[in-house]
């Protein structure tokens, strides 16, 4: 219960050493204005179930009920605890919690909500521990004139005791309610200062353990021979005995998604998968292609309102399928034997994963243990648990532990994709006034069945939106209207089933923002206004205008550039943050056609300036890293990265087909501006930056070429590679590695 902005009620939990937690609060009556308010409110009732523990060796443990997939939340969480507990950061040990069903909606990593929803509960828990340690030291020293710094409590006359020595003495045999006051923002010494990642040393020395690096006794490599079309089903296998006899192979069995192989090494799995002769049943999008999906989207598009009587500008934009494949492919370890299951995987929704795995295996939920491992990237992919389900199914079938990994070709062709979508925008104006903004976003259905849907259903009574479908609710709540554009109307329609979809570093916003910002440029042109000044004058809020001004001034908006080189500027607000991006793009033929082996050159973004205000930035260095990554995603989405659908399958099968931003596409001049903020509340950052970056690249491209782009990525019409075969489903391992040594 909040008594003031900094006074909270926390708990000392009954335990042999000091364990402190925040108070399980009821969702406050505050208005639920956006998606993050809903997620934070849903996490609040269980926030008391996450606890900070003081260890006898002076370290502090915290099992974070979120997934670390590169976004830096183990570092920022350690910083929150170090701040409130006055211990050195390196003594705070943040691990990832196993699936804990009692946490309900408080173990879902998504929508850039981690820091927003955990910022206060984690600090309250640490503050309770601090208060308790000081009380124990007061008893010890017979003095309450104490100072806690660097994990040591000292008296004025120089007596000292480490917090580890007090871990038992400060413990309580019964649970106590304790009011605490959090450290004032002006007194912060850790929060808000740049700090390197806590796991950086492990990562640069090869010690960081991802799922496939974990040793589980008996767990051998496993891979699945998959169908040639999306979600095809296995029929008969012609050469089962022959493949079972291949070197290293221990098992070959048909499972629901294909024919699984277990072997001593993944190399032998690859060879066995390639050797299998399988007849396949049709997939779920048999015969479909980019063109058929586009027709379906067109027929599902909701109409815009009546044609305005004033002048207006309209645009219709197409966004092709994109892969949210992380560099760590779908993978999981499963050991399902004797009526119990144990799973290791990087999972952003481990509670839902655990329930689904139990259902698939026919086991009680209590018989399934799910360990969350460090993730090698997510971008939306790890909200799902496709590999964990498969690994569990296979392990149960053969009664042996398996280390199951998708081949990259599987990850690209059968893995989840960001859905193809169209977005239609109309802006009506008269003279210098914008009168109305309409957007109709039409998308192949996005699968959100990873816990967010359940969260929304549980919170439905508190939402002021009534009984709308979940996706529409999500769409409305994830979109705010940053400009003073008169009457707004935004609608989402979804169509088409059968694809394995998911979000990619945000669900709708990169596409909807890109479409909006391109049409904003058109309106500015019609009015004879400068695109920057036009946006600046119509943006709502000082923070919004400040980020836009920051990129315009730092990036030199309007400076003279050669023909074929141009600037673009764009704005986006979400997750309680505001952002703006300015880019310069070089579309001259000598740049576009520069030779790149097995890759795509294309226009080069030569400068990118990105300004962000997320409110309080817990770790500015981490925030900067997230924005850099978002800019790279925005460049890829605008220029180079997409999947081509043909005859019911995606042509792209690896990184030499799928053109995510590479070094030769990166801006040589990249500047990230973290805006100073008076706010005492943090915003979300993991996905925030993609939208403005993508939109700015698109706007710059339009200005450099003189033609507004309407299809994304802009190179989708040119197939820049020779598609790999679908049978066998994965490519052979090369043997010429030594020929490339320089």
């Amino acid at each position, binding site marked *: 219960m909040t008594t003031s902005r900094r006074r909270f009620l926390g708990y000392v939990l009954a335990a042999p050493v000091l364990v402190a937690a925040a108070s399980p609060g009821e969702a406050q009556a505050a208005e639920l204005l956006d998606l993050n308010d809903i997620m934070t409110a849903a996490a609040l009732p269980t926030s008391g179930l996450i606890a900070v523990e003081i260890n006898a060796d002076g370290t502090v443990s915290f099992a974070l009920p979120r997934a670390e*997939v*590169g976004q830096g939340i183990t570092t920022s969480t350690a910083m929150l605890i170090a701040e409130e507990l006055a211990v050195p950061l390196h003594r705070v040990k943040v691990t990832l919690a196993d699936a804990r069903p009692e946490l309900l909606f408080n173990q879902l990593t998504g929508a850039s909500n981690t820091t927003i929803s955990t910022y206060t509960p984690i600090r309250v828990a640490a503050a309770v521990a601090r208060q308790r340690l000081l009380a124990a030291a007061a008893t010890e020293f017979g003095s309450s004139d104490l100072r806690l710094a660097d994990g040591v409590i000292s008296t004025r006359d120089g007596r000292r005791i480490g917090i580890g020595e007090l871990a038992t003495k400060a413990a309580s045999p019964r649970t106590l309610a304790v009011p605490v006051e959090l450290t004032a923002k002006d007194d912060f010494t850790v929060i808000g200062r740049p700090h*390197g*990642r806590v*796991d*950086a040393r*492990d*990562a*640069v*020395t*090869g010690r*960081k*353990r991802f799922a*496939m*690096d974990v*040793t589980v006794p008996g767990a051998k*490599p496993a891979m699945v021979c998959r169908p040639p079309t999306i979600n095809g089903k296995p029929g008969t296998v012609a050469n089962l005995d022959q493949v079972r006899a291949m*070197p*290293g192979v221990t098992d070959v069995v048909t499972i629901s998604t294909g024919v699984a192989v277990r072997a001593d*090494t*993944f*190399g*032998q799995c*690859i060879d066995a998968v390639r050797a299998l002769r399988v007849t396949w049943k049709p997939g779920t999008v048999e015969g479909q292609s980019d063109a058929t999906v586009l027709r379906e989207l067109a027929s599902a598009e909701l109409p815009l309102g009546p044609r305005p009587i004033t002048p207006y500008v309209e645009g219709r934009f197409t966004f092709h399928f994109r892969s949210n494949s*992380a*560099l*760590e*492919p779908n993978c999981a370890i499963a050991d399902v034997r004797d009526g119990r299951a144990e799973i290791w995987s990087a999972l952003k929704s481990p509670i839902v994963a655990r329930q689904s795995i139990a259902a698939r295996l026919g086991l009680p939920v209590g018989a399934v243990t799910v360990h969350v491992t460090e*993730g*090698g*990237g997510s*971008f939306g992919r790890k909200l799902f648990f496709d590999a964990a389900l498969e690994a569990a199914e296979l392990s149960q079938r053969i009664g042996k532990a398996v280390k199951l990994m998708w081949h*990259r070709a599987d990850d690209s062709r059968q893995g989840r994709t960001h859905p193809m979508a169209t977005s239609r925008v109309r802006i009506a104006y008269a003279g210098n006034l914008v009168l109305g903004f309409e957007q109709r976003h039409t998308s192949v259905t996005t699968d959100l069945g990873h816990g967010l849907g359940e969260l929304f259903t549980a919170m439905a009574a508190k939402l002021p939106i009534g009984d709308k479908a979940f996706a529409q609710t999500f769409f409305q709540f994830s979109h705010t209207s940053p400009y003073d554009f008169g009457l707004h109307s935004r609608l989402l329609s979804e169509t088409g089933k059968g694809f394995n979809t998911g979000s990619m570093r945000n669900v709708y916003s990169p596409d909807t923002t890109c479409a909006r910002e391109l049409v904003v440029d058109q309106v500015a042109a019609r009015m004879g206004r400068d695109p920057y000044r036009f946006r600046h004058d119509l943006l709502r809020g000082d923070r919004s205008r400040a980020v836009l001004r920051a990129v315009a001034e730092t990036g030199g908006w309007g400076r003279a550039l050669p023909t074929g080189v141009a600037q673009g500027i764009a704005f986006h607000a979400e997750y309680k943050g505001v952002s703006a991006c300015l880019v310069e793009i070089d579309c001259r033929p000598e740049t576009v056609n520069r030779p790149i082996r*097995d890759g795509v050159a294309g226009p080069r973004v030569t400068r990118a300036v990105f300004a962000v205000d997320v409110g309080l930035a817990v770790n500015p*260095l981490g925030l900067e*890293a997230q924005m850099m*990554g978002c*800019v*790279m995603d925005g460049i890829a989405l605008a220029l180079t990265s997409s999947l081509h659908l043909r005859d019911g399958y995606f042509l792209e099968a*690896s*990184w*030499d087909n799928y053109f*995510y*931003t*590479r*070094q*030769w596409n*990166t*801006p040589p001049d*990249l500047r990230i501006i973290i805006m100073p903020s008076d706010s005492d509340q943090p915003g979300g950052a993991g996905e925030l930056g993609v939208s403005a970056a993508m939109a700015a690249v698109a706007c710059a491209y339009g200005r450099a070429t003189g033609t507004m782009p309407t299809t994304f990525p802009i190179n989708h019409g040119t197939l820049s590679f020779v598609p790999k075969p679908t049978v066998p489903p994965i*490519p052979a*391992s*090369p*043997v*010429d*590695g*030594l020929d*490339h*040594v*320089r």
Partner: protein
Amino acid sequence: MPEHTFRVNGEQVTVTVDSDVRLLWVLRDILGVTGPKYGCGINVCKACTSHLNGRAFNPCAVPVRDLGPDDEITTIEGLAATAGADLHPMQQAWLDHDVVQCGYCQSGQIMAAVDLVRRVAAEGREITDADLDGIRNICRCGTYARIREAIRAAAASGG
């Protein structure tokens, strides 16, 4: 099954495995050396980049039969020892610039970076933007800018 003898991070190893198993799997699945990562298996993502006798190579594309007893494989785990320190200067530059995000590609990135600096130094010149543009290691987190800064810093300090 045939035996294969070679050196990994300063130690001689002998493994009994089919001759055509690629070195990446011998390292990861048999020897438990998990620093080199799988990202594609066809030598395009470069996440497994390691060194063979001091030069960058990709073990996903080398059958174990190609190695002899004198061949020295250095993975990220053995890099620091080649500089006789707790951290190789390139690893230190990586920490100084907080390059890592998820970290999955980073062992390959660092091994490729060390090789790039070696080649450029051998040519007696400075690292250029074109050199950095030529790095083929993919980073899906998009930490390319910090990779460039760290390489320039390490090169300048003689790393």
